[in-house]
């Protein structure tokens, strides 16, 4: 009777496979390193104050990303204001309130499906619903709403996971002290889960600012030589402060769209512009991801 232990070739295969595994794992990382080096060598020389503070231009050496990064911040804030309350509320409903019935099952499979809908379809939705039907035009608000719907499933799923991790003993203790459901959720469960929810929200927003296709669909323009109007600005006349939300209805561009526009141009000079924009975009995205990972590590509580 031969046992497997006596087959030396298996031992060899075992070792070879661990090498193959290590190679597979490092392959992706290798590509990542090559990508970063490639982008930096193309665009690092481009990054300076002039590039950050100039509007796009027909001449590559004059062009900058001012309207792009300001637009990205506008869009990020708008998206956050919409998707955070809606996503957390939906997550709370599904995890804490919903009964296990067909409606809940339906919502659940629906959210799983929405998470997999291609982003360009959300762009078509934004075009039909916000730009045309609600007549918001090609505005910051239309873009923010579109991206908020796009990342909503991510926020909902993160909220649910975070709430699930809170042990039921905390809820039971709160009920035992006479708190009702909402008081329990509001004062016990949500504070305990907020760190993990925040991680999900940051990841969702970092996804939103990298999105290009949905904003192309709703018609975010590529040549924007101005900024959306500031919500608060100082004026020369009384009352010296101009407060208004007009900026949300202004047209905009964002970093990914500006990069796409430059990549598709034949002139060599714009490649450096695109690479410079990519460095800024990568910096923002990776910084947000690093914060999210850090928060996740920090919040890994064992109850």
């Amino acid at each position, binding site marked *: 009777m031969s046992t*497997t*232990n006596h087959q030396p070739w298996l*031992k060899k*295969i*075992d070792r070879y*496979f*661990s090498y193959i*595994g290590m190679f*597979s*794992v490092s392959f*992706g*990382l290798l*590509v990542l390193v*090559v*990508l970063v080096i*490639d*982008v930096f060598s*193309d665009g690092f020389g481009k990054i300076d104050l002039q590039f950050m503070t100039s509007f796009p231009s027909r001449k590559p050496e004059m062009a900058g990303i001012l309207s792009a990064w300001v637009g990205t911040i506008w869009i990020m804030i708008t998206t956050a204001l919409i998707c955070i309350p*809606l996503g957390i*509320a*939906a997550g709370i*409903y599904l995890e804490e*309130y919903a009964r296990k019935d067909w409606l809940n099952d*339906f*919502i659940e*499979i*629906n*959210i799983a*499906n929405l998470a*997999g*809908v*291609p*982003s*360009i*379809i959300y762009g078509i*939705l934004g*075009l039909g*619903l916000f730009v045309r039907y609600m007549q918001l035009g090609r505005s910051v608000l239309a873009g923010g709403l579109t991206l908020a719907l796009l990342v*909503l499933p991510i926020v909902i799923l993160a909220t649910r996971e975070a709430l699930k991790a809170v042990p039921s003993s905390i809820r039971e203790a709160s009920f035992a002290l006479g708190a*009702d*459901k*909402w008081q329990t959720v509001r004062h016990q469960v949500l504070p305990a889960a907020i760190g993990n929810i925040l991680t999900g929200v940051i*990841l969702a927003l970092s996804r939103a600012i*990298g*999105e*290009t*296709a949905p904003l*192309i669909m709703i*018609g975010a323009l590529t040549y924007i030589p101005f900024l959306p109007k500031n919500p608060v600005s100082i004026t020369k006349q009384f009352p010296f402060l101009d407060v208004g939300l007009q900026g949300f209805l202004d047209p905009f561009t964002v970093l*990914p769209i500006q*990069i796409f526009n430059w*990549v*598709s141009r034949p002139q060599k000079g714009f*490649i450096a512009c695109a690479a410079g924009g*990519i460095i800024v*975009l*990568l910096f923002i*995205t*990776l910084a947000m*991801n690093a914060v999210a990972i850090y928060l996740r590590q920090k919040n890994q509580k064992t109850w």
Partner: protein
Amino acid sequence: MKTDQASLAVGGTGTLSRTRVIRKIKAMLIRRLLQACGLLSVFITFAIIFILFSESLGFFKEVSLIDFLTDTQWTPLFINKHYGILPLLMGTLLTTFIAVVVAVPLGLTSAVYLSEYASRKARNIIKPVLEILAAIPTVVYGYFALLFITPVLKNIFPGIAGFNALSAGIVMGVMIIPLVSSLSEDAMHAVPNGLREGAYALGSRKIQVAFKIVFPAALSGITAAIILSLSRAIGETMIVAIAAGQQPNFTLNPLVPIETITAYIVQVSLGDTPHGTLEYKTIFVCGLMLFIVTFILNVVSFKLKTRFQNVYD
């Protein structure tokens, strides 16, 4: 004294019941509000379906479904107009196929390695780093495909065009590696340790445990991961719009420019096609095709995953 207490008690319950009613109404309002947010996702799905169908109906009033599905030319923006989806479908299938050929072997070996071979510590470091690959904006990958991978490929295939399906597909594959590996690893991780220990007790080696025990046990979860990555590749837009070209060629040659469904939608919305024209409606028809295909894949993947979870929970 006794009556006093009684009246107090009555008054007490009176106010108590009023606060109780207010509390009940408040609880109900909160519940309804939260429920409305939960139902918003259903509304989004219906809004997507409504918009896609209503505009597509207008398209199919002018173009027959048979032409749409059998014509091998797609030229809505030219004078001699043809509305055959096949070239776009072929382009999408080609880039998706290349992406899957890259991502599935690398993703699955990574998953087996992380789940069965790597130490816990190594896994905790490698996994988040791999996730970064999925966090990079797709427009960056498009840049990389067009300006780095394509020139590299030119050394291997001198005849390769500046825009081609191969480089877009390869880069798309790299992008979805973390999706395949992370979901498959989750599935393998969920396989109970008792199965592994039983196999080790019978004298198995790691490779046997990994491929004869854990892999088959996690198969439905792994299949779900692969299907989901397929759906992601089909819907991916910016990489193919930048690097694969804008020529709807009915071909399986990965070295020439092609056009995917998603790239076509981008192409139309970048131009100024007037609202309401047949050209404009092609966006929605293409969107509908894309939605149907990815919807089916997502639902199959979800069902497989939940079935898998039910087995070992």
